[in-house]
C-alpha cells in the first residue's frame, strides 16, 4: 500500500526509569505486548539503558508509547527514523496488524498498549512529533483487538500437533506425513496390521487343526470329489471375500484415522473400524467400479492400438510401425486410474460413493494450484507418488538390511532366515502402506484447502 510505504516512522528509545517499581511495571507492560520478550528478560534488559524499543513506530503509536512509558515512570526519547531504515522495502517487511517488525531485539509492540488497564489514551502533545509537522490526531475509540501476537502470527487453521492445514508445499505434505506417522505410529500400525494378524491367526489355527486331525495333502485324494467341489464353491470364495473386505476395512479405517488426527483430534483404533464399517459396502463397490473404469480405459487404448496397427499397415506396408504409439496409448489407463486415485478418501471422508466419488476425485485433480512448481494438481500427485516410491524403497531397505544380516549369520538354518526375512519384509510393507495412506490423505486435504478453502471453512466454523 502506497500509504504505508510513504509513512514516516519514529525511533523510540527508553532512556531512564524512575525506580525499581517503575522498572517492574515497564517490564510487565512490554512483556504483555510483545511476542517473545518475557518480563524477566525485559527487566534484565533495562539494567543497561538506553534501550531502543522500536525504530518503526508510526506517529500515532509513538505517541502512545511515550504516554504509556511516561505514565509508568519511564523517560523515552522519540526521533524520526532515518529514511533508509524506515522504508518497509528496505527490510523486506510490511507493517500490518499482528506482524509488526521491530529492528531491536524481538519486540513486536502491539496496539494492546493503548488498552493496557489504567493507561488512558490522551490527545497527542509530544513536542518531538509536532516539531516534525505531524498533525495531531484527535482522540479515537479504542481499536479492535489486533490479530494474534503469538509465534505463529495469527490464528491458525485447526490442524493436529500444532500444524496448520493451510495449503502446503510438496515438502510440507511429506513433513506432515512423517509427523503424523511419528505421533500416531502405533495406532496406525495397529489399524493396518490387524488384517495381517487375522490372516496369520487363521493360517495358524488351520495348521493346528490339520495337525490334530492328521490331515495332509496326500489325504486330499481320499476326500470325495463332491466335498472338494462344495468346499471350492463356498468356503474358498467366502474366505477370499472376507480377507479382501478386511483389507478394505483396514484401508478405510486408516483413511478415517489419519483424517481425524490431521484435523487435530484424537482417534481410537476401534472407533476408526466402527466408522468405516458403515461405509464398507460403498467403498468396496466403488473400488469395483474403479477397476471397471480402468479396464475400460485399457480397452480403449487397446482398440486405438489395433486401429492404428491397421492404419499403419495400409500406409507404411508394415503394421508394426504403430508400435511407436504404444507408450502414449498406455498412458490412457494410467492417466484415468491416477485421476481417480482419491476416490477412497471421498467415499470415507465425504460419504460420496460410486460414479459421484470417481467424478469428485477427477474434479479434485483437475486444475492448477497457486504458488511454485508444480502447479497442476495431477502433476503434483505424480511427483508425490514418485517421492513416496523413493521413500518406500528406503523403508524397505531399512527392514531388508537386518533381515539379510540375520540370514547371513545363520547360513545353516535357512528356514529361520527366510521366515525372519519374510516377517521383516511384511512389516516394511505395512509401514510403507501406512506412509502412503497418510501421504495421500494429507494431499487430499491440501487440494481441498487450495481449491475449496477447506481450512478457512473450518476456521470460520471454529469460533462461531
Amino acid at each position: 500500500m502506497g500509504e504505508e510505504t510513504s509513512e514516516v516512522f519514529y525511533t523510540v528509545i527508553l532512556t531512564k526509569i524512575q525506580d525499581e517499581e517503575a522498572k517492574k511495571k515497564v517490564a510487565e507492560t512490554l512483556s504483555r505486548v510483545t511476542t517473545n520478550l518475557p518480563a524477566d528478560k525485559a527487566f534484565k534488559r533495562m539494567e543497561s539503558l538506553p534501550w531502543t524499543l522500536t525504530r518503526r513506530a508510526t506517529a500515532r503509536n509513538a505517541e502512545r508509547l511515550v504516554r504509556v512509558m511516561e505514565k509508568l515512570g519511564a523517560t523515552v526519547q522519540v526521533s524520526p527514523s532515518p529514511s533508509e531504515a524506515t522504508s518497509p522495502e528496505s527490510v523486506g517487511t510490511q507493517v500490518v496488524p499482528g506482524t509488526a517488525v521491530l529492528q531491536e531485539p524481538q519486540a513486536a509492540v502491539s496496539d494492546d498498549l493503548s488498552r493496557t488497564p489504567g493507561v488512558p489514551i490522551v490527545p497527542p502533545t509530544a513536542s518531538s512529533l509536532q516539531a516534525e509537522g505531524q498533525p495531531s490526531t484527535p482522540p479515537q475509540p479504542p481499536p479492535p483487538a489486533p490479530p494474534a501476537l503469538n509465534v505463529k502470527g495469527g490464528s491458525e487453521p485447526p490442524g493436529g500437533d500444532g500444524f496448520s492445514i493451510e495449503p502446503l508445499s510438496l515438502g510440507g505434505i511429506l513433513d506432515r506425513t512423517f509427523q503424523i506417522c511419528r505421533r500416531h505410529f502405533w495406532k496406525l500400525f495397529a489399524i493396518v496390521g490387524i488384517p495381517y494378524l487375522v490372516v496369520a491367526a487363521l493360517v495358524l489355527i488351520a495348521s493346528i487343526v490339520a495337525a490334530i486331525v492328521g490331515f495332509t495333502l496326500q489325504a486330499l485324494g481320499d476326500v470325495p470329489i463332491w466335498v472338494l467341489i462344495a468346499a471350492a464353491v463356498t468356503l474358498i470364495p467366502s474366505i477370499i471375500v472376507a480377507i479382501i473386505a478386511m483389507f478394505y476395512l483396514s484401508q478405510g479405517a486408516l483413511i478415517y484415522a489419519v483424517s481425524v488426527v490431521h484435523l487435530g483430534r484424537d482417534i481410537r483404533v476401534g472407533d476408526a473400524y466402527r466408522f468405516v464399517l458403515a461405509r464398507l459396502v460403498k467403498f468396496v463397490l466403488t473400488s469395483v467400479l474403479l477397476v471397471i473404469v480402468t479396464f475400460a480405459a485399457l480397452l480403449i487404448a487397446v482398440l486405438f492400438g489395433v486401429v492404428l496397427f491397421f492404419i499403419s499397415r495400409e500406409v507404411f506396408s508394415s503394421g508394426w510401425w504403430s508400435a511407436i504409439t504404444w507408450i502414449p496409448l498406455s498412458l490412457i489407463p494410467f492417466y484415468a486410474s491416477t485421476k481417480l486415485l482419491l476416490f477412497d478418501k471421498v467415499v470415507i471422508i465425504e460419504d460420496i460413493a460410486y460414479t459421484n466419488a470417481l467424478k469428485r476425485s477427477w474434479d479434485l485433480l483437475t486444475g492448477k494450484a497457486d504458488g511454485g512448481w508444480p502447479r497442476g494438481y495431477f502433476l503434483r500427485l505424480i511427483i508425490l507418488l514418485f517421492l513416496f516410491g523413493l521413500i518406500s524403497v528406503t523403508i524397505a531397505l531399512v527392514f531388508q538390511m537386518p533381515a539379510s544380516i540375520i540370514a547371513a549369520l545363520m547360513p545353516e538354518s535357512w528356514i529361520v532366515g527366510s521366515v525372519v526375512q519374510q516377517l521383516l519384509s511384511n512389516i516394511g510393507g505395512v509401514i510403507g502402506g501406512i506412509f502412503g495412506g497418510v501421504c495421500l490423505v494429507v494431499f487430499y486435504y491440501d487440494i481441498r484447502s487450495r481449491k475449496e478453502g477447506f481450512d478457512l471453512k473450518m476456521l470460520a466454523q471454529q469460533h462461531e
Partner: protein
Amino acid sequence: MPCQERAVKENPQTVTTETSDHMVHQFHLAGIGTRFIAYLIDKLVQTGMVLGLTIITVLLLILTGKLSPAGECLVRLRDSLGWWLVAPTIAVYELITKGYFILFEYLWNGSTPGKRSQEIRAIRKDGRPISFVAAVIRNILRAVDILAEIYPVGLVVMFIDSRNRRLGDLAAGTLVVREAEFKPPVICTPLQEPNGADAEILNVALEMTMEDYDLVRKFLARRDSLDADYRRDLARQILERVSRRSVSIGEESSNPEAFLEKLETLCRRETKEI
C-alpha cells in the same frame, strides 16, 4: 519465561535458543520430507555437475585430438592397477559428493542449492551459523546415514529424533531449520475505498476479533485460487460469522467479498501497530 515455554509446548517443531546477551531466537525445524527433497535436488545438481564436467572434458579431448591417447592411458591404468583402481575412484566420488555439501554449507551459511530451494539451512544447535568443522563432521557422517544413495539409517534416526536430526547432525551438534519465516502478507486493495461515512462497516470492523481479521485477510489473499462456488459460499459464511457480533448489514450481503474487502481495510487502518 512463559512465552518461550508456551511456544515450545504448542509446537514441538519449534526450537528456541537464547544468546549470551539474552536475545531469544525461535527457529522452525525443517521436516524430514523437506530435507529429503532438498537432498534429491542436491543429488541432481551433483549429477549435472559431474555430467557437465565429463562432457566438457571429452569435448576438449576431441577438439585437441587427444581422445585416443587418453583412452589408452585409462586402459593401461586399469591393466596395471586392476581392482586397486576402485579405491581412488571411490575416493574421488566421495570427495566430490561430500565436498559439495561441505563447501556449500560452509560458504553459504549452512545452505546448499537443494536446501536453498526448500528454504532451509543448517545451523548450530545454539542458533549460531554452522562452522567449518561442524560442516565437515555432519557431512562425513552422511556416509553412515546414506546407503545406496538413499537414507535408510538417516531416515530411522530422523524419525526417532524429535528434532529431525540424522546421525551427522547429532555428532556435529547441528539442526536444520526453515528460514524466511516472515513473508509479507497480501494486502488487498478494495475496489471501493471505505470512508468515514461507512459507520455500519466501521462498527462491524470494531467488533471483529483477531481470529475474524485473520480469517478475512486469509480469504482475501487466497480467493482467486478458490473454485467459484466455494469462493462465493465461503465469503458468505465468513461475512455471516463476522457480522453476527454486530448490527445487521442488510444490503451489503449481496456482495460479501466487497464488504469483506472494506472490513479488512478498515480494520487494518484502525489497528495499525507500532
